[in-house]
């Protein structure tokens, strides 16, 4: 594993390229340890039947490409041009105006000019022109065309796996060119040759087999919830057992498995459990599933087909259990997939009913087709209808800001609901600068399967713009807690903030909800879910 340079080193970035230099087409990529992830392991590809499994290392000279690799790529490219108007159009209409150039967090944090979104897409476009357009064929380099060589393929791979598919570039492009879409389809091409990263391939195989990325088997999953039940009992004095795989429940709950197994997501998971218990006596009938125990979808970082294969479990499980609708936890790309693809992939879910909150009677009309409601939506509705007794002062030790995850932001437009919930459960909330939130939000730098340990330098660089905005509110308002509604965020921000902004922790929204939630008959709470003393409580005891 590469050592990650110190922040002062990392911060030495120059965004200007020298005046006279060779054009980018003539400079092959130089893969740098710390910037890329390990290659996919054969057993993970084999498990899901992906082509060309092999033991390979991106740092090696030889990538063990099959004999006819060029034809495979060109065939695959053509096939996708015919199936996706987005790709064809985005290959053709970029005017290289540069509006997107300085919008990518990976460019901002690395200064590598090939991380400008326009250039990232040009890497593919150049080959596209040469192969599929008259102008490119005739004019060659003058027309911006370039032969597909092994160097070019390696360059593709290197830069396609330096894009977190966050779509920030798309927002600023006058034609809506979405480099994330180009990345997604470009990655599909690399997968045709067995070239993915193991940090993506392993979760895909795990999810296929056990239902979740971490490969947690059903009994272990249950153990974990039991463990949280004990923890919650210690804090509140109430035992909050959860239902699992229960047929006939009204609602199926699906959340990213990161919440179940990694801090600080686990606190958010405890938050879900507490909320569900709170609502049980009011008529909530909900179950968790071990088979569909993953909301996130790493298949989406492999190919549309793999995303569809993994996504299928949610509806299948809903059908088997006979629930009426599905509730989804706090997750980023999970919601992008649910919002943009789920019904198209695996619908229509006509065995389900249009979601209605059993507690408020609110019809979730915006989820009429997918039958899948966002937990934060659900909670916001509860709060709006005064269904929850909340004591926001229990979060008074927190000065909170909110990170819009790129997927719920630019892939959904989910901005107000989380803010409404947060403001209802805590008293100190500050926004980061407006050009870094909502639709202009910056990626955590580790999305789309880049959250491995071996590419830490890339992640610290990519997360710099986000961290910089957090630093701003940390210094200005004393913000000490970054809240988010994405499991990857919860997994990767602690490292990022420790690196750039020590002193700021990370939380999910439902952790704060659960802290504030006042239960009938609970023991006096002296700590929050993390076991940290609650503000004011210790003083009262002293008196």
């Amino acid at each position, binding site marked *: 594993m590469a050592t990650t340079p110190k922040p002062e080193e990392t*911060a030495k970035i120059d965004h*200007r390229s020298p005046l006279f230099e060779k054009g980018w087409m003539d400079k092959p990529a130089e893969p740098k340890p710390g910037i890329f992830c390990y290659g996919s392991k054969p057993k993970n590809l084999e498990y899901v039947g992906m082509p060309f499994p092999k033991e390979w290392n991106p740092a090696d000279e030889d990538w063990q490409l099959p004999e006819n690799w060029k034809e495979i790529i060109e065939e695959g490219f053509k096939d996708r041009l015919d199936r996706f108007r*987005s790709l064809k159009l985005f290959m053709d209409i970029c*005017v290289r*105006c540069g509006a997107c150039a300085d919008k990518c967090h990976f460019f901002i944090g690395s200064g590598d000019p090939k991380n400008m979104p326009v250039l990232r897409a040009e890497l593919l476009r150049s080959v596209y022109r040469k192969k599929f357009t008259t102008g490119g064929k005739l004019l060659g380099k003058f027309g911006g065309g370039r032969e597909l060589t092994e160097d070019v393929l390696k360059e593709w791979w290197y830069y396609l796996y330096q894009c977190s598919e966050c779509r920030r570039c798309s927002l*600023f492009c006058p034609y809506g060119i979405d480099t994330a879409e180009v990345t997604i389809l470009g990655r599909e091409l690399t997968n045709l040759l067995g070239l993915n990263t193991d940090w993506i391939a392993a979760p895909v195989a795990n999810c296929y087999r056990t239902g979740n990325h971490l490969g947690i088997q059903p009994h272990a999953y249950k153990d974990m919830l039991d463990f949280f039940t004990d923890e919650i009992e210690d804090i509140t004095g109430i035992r909050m057992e959860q239902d699992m795989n229960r047929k006939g429940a009204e609602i199926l709950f699906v959340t990213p498995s990161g919440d179940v197994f990694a801090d600080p997501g686990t606190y958010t998971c405890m938050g879900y459990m507490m909320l569900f218990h709170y609502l049980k006596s009011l008529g909530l009938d909900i179950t968790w599933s071990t088979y569909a125990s993953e909301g996130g979808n790493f298949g989406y970082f492999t190919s549309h087909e793999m995303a569809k294969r993994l996504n299928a479990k949610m509806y299948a499980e809903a059908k088997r259990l006979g629930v009426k609708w599905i509730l989804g936890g706090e997750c980023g790309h999970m919601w992008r997939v649910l919002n943009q693809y789920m019904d198209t992939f695996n619908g229509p879910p006509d065995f389900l009913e249009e979601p209605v909150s059993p507690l408020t009677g609110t019809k979730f009309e*915006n989820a009429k087709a997918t039958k899948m409601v966002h937990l934060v939506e659900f909670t916001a509705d509860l709060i709006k209808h005064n269904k929850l007794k909340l004591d926001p002062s229990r979060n008074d030790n927190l000065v909170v800001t909110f990170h819009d995850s790129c997927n719920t932001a630019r892939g959904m437009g989910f901005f107000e609901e989380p803010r409404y919930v947060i403001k209802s459960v805590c008293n100190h909330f500050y926004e980061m600068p407006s050009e870094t939130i909502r639709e202009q939000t910056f990626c955590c730098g580790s999305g789309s399967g880049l959250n491995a340990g071996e590419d830490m330098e890339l992640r610290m660089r990519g997360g710099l713009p986000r961290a910089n905005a957090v630093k701003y509110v940390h210094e200005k308002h004393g913000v000490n807690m970054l809240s988010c509604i994405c499991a990857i965020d919860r997994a990767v921000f602690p490292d990022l903030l420790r690196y750039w902004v020590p002193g700021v922790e990370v939380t999910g929204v439902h952790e704060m909800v659960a802290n504030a939630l006042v239960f009938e008959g609970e023991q006096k709470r002296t700590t929050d879910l993390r076991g940290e003393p609650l503000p004011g409580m210790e003083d009262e005891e002293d008196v």
Partner: protein
Amino acid sequence: MSIIVSSLAVLVVVAIPWIGVGALDLRVLFGIVIPYAAMATFFVGIVVRVIDWGRSPVPFRIPTTAGQEWSFPWIKRNPVDNPKGLGGVIVRMLFEVLTFRSLFRNTRLEYRRVDGVPKIDYEWEKWLWLAAILFHYSFLVIFIRHFRFFMEPVPGFVTLLQNLDGFMQMGAAPFNGFGLPGVYLTDMLLMAAVTWLLVRRILYSQMRYISLPSDYFPLFLILSLGFSGMLMRYLFRVDVTKVKELAIGLFKFSPTVPEGIGVIFFIHLFILCVLIAYFPFSKLMHLAGVFLSPTRNLSNNSRFVRHVNPWSYPVPTHTYEEYEDEFREHMIEAGLPVEKGADATAGSEEKE
């Protein structure tokens, strides 16, 4: 490199009619054949391209959501940037096409280090938007103004536009009083905007890095188009009546080339022909492409309206039965409900 290649290419473009008409007197070729060929290429090319794009389906609904989605009645949504239905999409597209809304959002990165600590700011940056919008609108006005050359009688709105455009004639412009015609505002704006777009490409290292010959080429072409047009208007005056005769002939499909039109006109015309013939093969197709862009012209409604993928096919999935077969014993031990009893496990093969 790219700049040199493309400026040479444009010089060639200028030289061809100069020699062709000036020296060889190929008036019919440059006045009739080439314009027709160029126009045919333009229209056929665009249609073919658009049909080609249209043939690829839009399998998924992938709008970029730039505002609050439609959810609860008590949450203020953004119907334009995150449209729910057709109406919102139309407004969004109008904003996009008429005001270059996305480009208007543009900011510029300011990266500094203060004592080794990075400070990132996003500066106001509207120049690109301004240049782009001035350029496109000036071009449009100039285009409409040219109607007076090939329409008889000249439509009223053209005259009106022309007068508005030429209001500098009122005496403010320095050229007046030298016996020169009034200066058109749009001529100036167009040239200024295109010059800025060009200078920007050369000056900013990021722009220089991403620019291809095919980025400079159209800029040079448009610059020389404007320049030759202005030369014609302000210096080497050509016989407008004869030009008009030619233009109307072209549009009535009974073309003739009147004698006595200056070479400069043929240069102007030829540049135009090259531009429009080049159009369908180049990035200039963004003109048509912007309307088809799936991130802008789709509504964000896939959670409540079903969207069908025309090439969707069944995929292998890992079924619950297979899953339970593999983990049944563990599940029973953990007290999780199962479909089949413990003895079912014995019959099925264990994977691990």
